[in-house]
């Protein structure tokens, strides 16, 4: 007796999702100063335990724009963050971290332009070592000087709608309000101010500083931010690669949610199953049952 294998019919191909392209982040790019980015996550590189750990986190994050700091050259250091960024085609965004005056920040930006061949700068002018909060007066002065000098200026700023507007009016290509102090992981302390900033802004708004975990990044996007910048939340996480991927997904999710338009908050429930057609299963009417509405 011989057996033949039963003829199998191939499984039908799943129907194509007609909305797949519309929900792909690549179909909804971020544009800063005319440059388009598929990723809305700007990464910092500070705090990583090694260049190799930083590289893996950057890849997991999907970032296309990443900050570096300018420091005195150390002849003993081999391997460069620039090599890593270059290898993966990630655009470099020099910052002016560590500057306390407009003059220092302007000179640092000009050195970065000379060293890195980019006129983009993430402008930071810090007022206080303990909080690392921006000095708004020096920040605005530096922004005006650098814009006049042809720079594309992305200022790290307070979560102040008035200052954000003045920076935009000065010609900044984006505004980067802080959610909470750098490295604090305290999230967005003033969501209302973020909403005010994003509603009024004519340039991209980028959460900068304070994100501690993925929900903070998603919240920023839901509040109308165009992108999120973070470093410590990933580089100092116990598993930086996993957190980098989490941030990537959270930002995509938050952006989709913001575009989708959330439902209004209600005080009471609103049934999602129909109230008509409920079977009579012997439940007696209860005149004591409280009715809300």
């Amino acid at each position, binding site marked *: 007796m011989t057996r033949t294998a039963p003829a199998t019919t191939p499984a039908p191909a799943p129907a194509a999702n007609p909305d797949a392209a519309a929900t792909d982040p690549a179909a909804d790019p971020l544009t800063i100063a005319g440059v388009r980015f598929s990723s809305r996550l700007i990464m910092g590189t500070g705090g990583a335990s090694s260049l190799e750990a930083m590289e893996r986190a950057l890849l997991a994050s999907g970032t296309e724009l990443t900050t570096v700091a300018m420091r005195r050259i150390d002849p003993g250091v081999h391997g460069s963050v620039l090599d890593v960024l270059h290898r993966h085609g990630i655009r470099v965004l020099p910052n002016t971290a560590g500057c306390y005056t407009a003059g220092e920040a302007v000179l640092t930006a*000009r050195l970065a332009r000379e060293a890195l061949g980019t006129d983009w700068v993430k402008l930071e002018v810090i007022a206080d070592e303990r909080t690392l909060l921006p000095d708004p007066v020096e920040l605005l002065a530096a922004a005006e000087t650098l814009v006049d000098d042809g720079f594309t200026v992305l200022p790290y700023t307070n979560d102040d709608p008035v200052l954000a507007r003045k920076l935009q009016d000065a010609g900044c290509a984006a505004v980067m309000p802080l959610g909470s102090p750098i490295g604090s992981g305290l999230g967005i302390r003033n969501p209302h101010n973020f909403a005010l900033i994003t509603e009024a802004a004519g340039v991209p708004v980028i959460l900068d500083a304070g994100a501690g975990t993925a929900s903070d990044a998603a919240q920023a996007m839901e509040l109308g931010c165009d992108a999120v910048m973070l470093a410590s939340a990933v580089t100092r996480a116990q598993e930086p690669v996993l957190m980098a991927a989490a941030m990537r997904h959270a930002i995509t999710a938050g952006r989709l949610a913001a575009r989708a338009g959330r439902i209004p908050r209600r005080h009471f429930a609103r049934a999602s199953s129909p109230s008509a057609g409920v079977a009579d299963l012997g439940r007696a009417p209860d005149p004591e049952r409280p009715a809300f509405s």
Partner: protein
Amino acid sequence: MTEDATQTRTTTPPTATAAATRPDTDTAPAATVTVNGAPRRIDAGLTLDALVATVTAAPRGVAAAVNEDVVPRGSWPTTTLGDGDRVEILTAVQGG
């Protein structure tokens, strides 16, 4: 870059690194400059190009300022250093 020559020459003996930048100590007058915050004896008239070469061989990613003015890389070979000049040589590092 010799306009700020008010700083007097120090009596600190030249370090090994500084000596490497002064191969011909008998013919050129010495000068003391500050390189990234540290004093360095050099031959007066040493070019910025030659000074940077003693710190790094990196062909890109490096910028220099002399007395708080950025000097474009193309001008390094023609920028000479004199007593009291403050030189900052920077590169990109992990940050932000």
